[in-house]
């Protein structure tokens, strides 16, 4: 089979379609997933193909339709809940943390919540502070949740299928800026495992550790750096909880220098967790203090030049690598 070139949104839709075909227990529920065709047109056409009982438009009530997904999962179904964007998921956090993440352990292992929650995440489209959060790294703090961030088209299509096979709640964060991007997938839709990070570019001098929307900026930065003769490895975490420590440490053991690139606000970001784990597990591999490139600590503003300045850009990544390779040793954060 020859590879297909499709938009990320189309890869997501192929995954959803395959999931609905494979397993009768799967259904999709959320605001405007049906009649409207999905806010970002991801689920367009699925209502016509699978009908109202499996493609369910909900009222505006994030807490309750998320909780209903948990209940349906407890009662034998394999629901896919779409929360339109991560920004609105704050309304459903009680259900996600106090129920989805907790019920298995709190019940002594009796209950299982095989639920998938999908949401778009990230900034970059001038939607301002209430519509530009990147909270996937923040969600990764919660035991009981599995957090994934498909950055490639294969992952966009296949991580959903793997997530549906997982007996625990999986949150899938789809970066809004990727939706229209073209990429390739091969063969029929198939599950893409959730356990391992993936090296997207091999390199020997410095590691860029990243995920989701920032993968592509990191790859672009690596290209530029290659032109300057800096041989950069790019590691795509894929799953943010649990982290693939082995892959992180292996990359660090190879390059001894790293930059974490993460769209979350700097303080308390996932990047801090990664750097701390490296301190714990590979401290003496480090040739220089690790550096992170994160979002500025500001509610993301509307104006394009301000938004661009708030969110990590390719130049910021390149500059961070320069700082790191310059070896000043006091690499400040972006």
């Amino acid at each position, binding site marked *: 089979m020859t590879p297909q070139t499709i938009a990320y949104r189309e890869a997501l839709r192929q995954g959803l379609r395959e999931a609905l075909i494979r397993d009768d227990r799967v259904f999709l529920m959320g605001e405007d997933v049906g009649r409207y065709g999905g806010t970002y047109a991801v689920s367009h056409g699925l209502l016509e193909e699978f009908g109202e009982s499996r493609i369910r438009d909900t009222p505006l009530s994030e807490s309750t339709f998320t*909780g*209903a997904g948990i209940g349906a999962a407890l009662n034998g179904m394999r629901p896919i809940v779409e929360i339109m964007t991560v920004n609105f998921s704050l309304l459903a956090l009680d259900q996600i943390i106090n129920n989805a993440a907790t019920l298995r*352990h709190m*019940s002594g292992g009796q*209950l299982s919540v095989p639920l998938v929650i999908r949401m778009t995440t990230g900034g970059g489209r001038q939607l301002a502070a209430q519509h530009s959060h990147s909270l996937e790294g923040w969600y990764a703090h919660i035991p009981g949740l599995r957090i994934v961030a498909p950055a490639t088209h294969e992952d966009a299509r296949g991580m959903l299928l793997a997530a549906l096979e997982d007996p625990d709640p999986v949150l899938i964060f789809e970066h809004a800026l990727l939706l229209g991007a073209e990429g390739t997938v091969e063969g029929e839709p198939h599950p893409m495992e959730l356990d391992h990070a993936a090296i997207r570019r091999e390199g020997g001098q410095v590691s860029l550790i990243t995920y989701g929307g920032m993968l592509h900026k990191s790859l672009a930065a690596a290209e530029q750096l290659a032109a300057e003769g800096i041989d950069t490895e790019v590691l795509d975490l894929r799953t943010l909880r*649990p982290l693939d*420590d082995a892959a992180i440490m292996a990359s660090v053991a190879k390059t001894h220098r790293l930059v974490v690139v993460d769209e979350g606000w700097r303080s308390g970001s996932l990047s801090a967790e990664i750097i701390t784990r490296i301190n714990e597990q590979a401290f003496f591999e480090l040739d220089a203090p690790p550096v992170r490139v994160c979002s500025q600590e500001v509610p993301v503003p509307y104006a394009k030049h301000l938004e661009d300045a708030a969110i990590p850009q390719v130049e910021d990544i390149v500059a961070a690598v320069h700082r790191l390779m310059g070896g000043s040793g006091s690499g400040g954060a972006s």
Partner: protein
Amino acid sequence: MNASPPREGPEASPAIGAAGLDDPARARALLWQMIRIRRFEEKCAELYSAGKIRGFLHLYIGEEAIAAGAMPALRDTDNVLATYREHGHALARGVPAGAIMAEMYGKQEGCSRGHGGSMHLFDASRRFVGGSAIVGGSLPLAVGFALADRLAGRDNVTVCFFGDGAVAEGEFHESLNLATLWQLPVLFLCENNRYAMGTALERHQSQVDLAAKAAAYRLPSESVDGMDVVAVSRATEAAIDQVRGGQGPMFLEYRTYRFRAHSMFDPEHYRDKAEVEQWKQRCPVETFARDAVACGLLEASVRDEIEREVAEEIDAAVAFAEAGTWEPVEHLCRDVYAREARP
């Protein structure tokens, strides 16, 4: 079915009472279940003082007619969701008293392996998703349980118990809307004991007639005297039949009262002793026992028999809990995920 006007005091509604029953075996079963819950909880209070039970402990004493009257109307395949005040529901649903007591001791023989305690009793085999300690948090789950049954073509009913306090939370609103919109087989069971902790109903609801409030979602709703086990039983049976028949969700308000403090820490500044005493006159155990004997449904001796049976069962439950074992500390992080996972 429509909303009836609110009753302000503890007076009984035009009585159904024991007189409404004609089956002595059923009368005995109802009385037995109420006494069993009462004595079990009195034992819990004692064990709390003795330091055997810890954390939060919320007693159901005064409200037993609800769990005892409602639960027999359910099938094994139906689903039950409840709150942190759920000992009575667990017992009435058939969760063994020993497993409940062991849970409160924190032993691994407990119905939640000691992970949950009093507020989190679970028994998947009995479809009892009992314990939720976030007020209102189980209503959305109940909607989802019902949705799953509907999608799978099973004619099960999901019942969800919650308090008057939960009615103020947004999830109440969202859940009644969604269940009604989708005509799901869920029965919302509000145990209106007139207080959310120390906040009286009229200080937390602009509309104190909760059945009327629910009716605004266009689902059938009704109020029942929650101190009368026969009234509870009848109303709940009828509601479950209707919901199982595919007529969409329903709402029942049980008007009741808790005789004890909210939890073991509550100094009860917010209500008069006299009010409590007045309600105690309507104790569901005593009124039903008295009426059942008076109308010849039960022999006077049955009460003692039941007390003996119950005392034995509770002693055995305590012994079971005492004999229980501690889960090894090394198992602490098991069951966070089904698949073994690094964090």
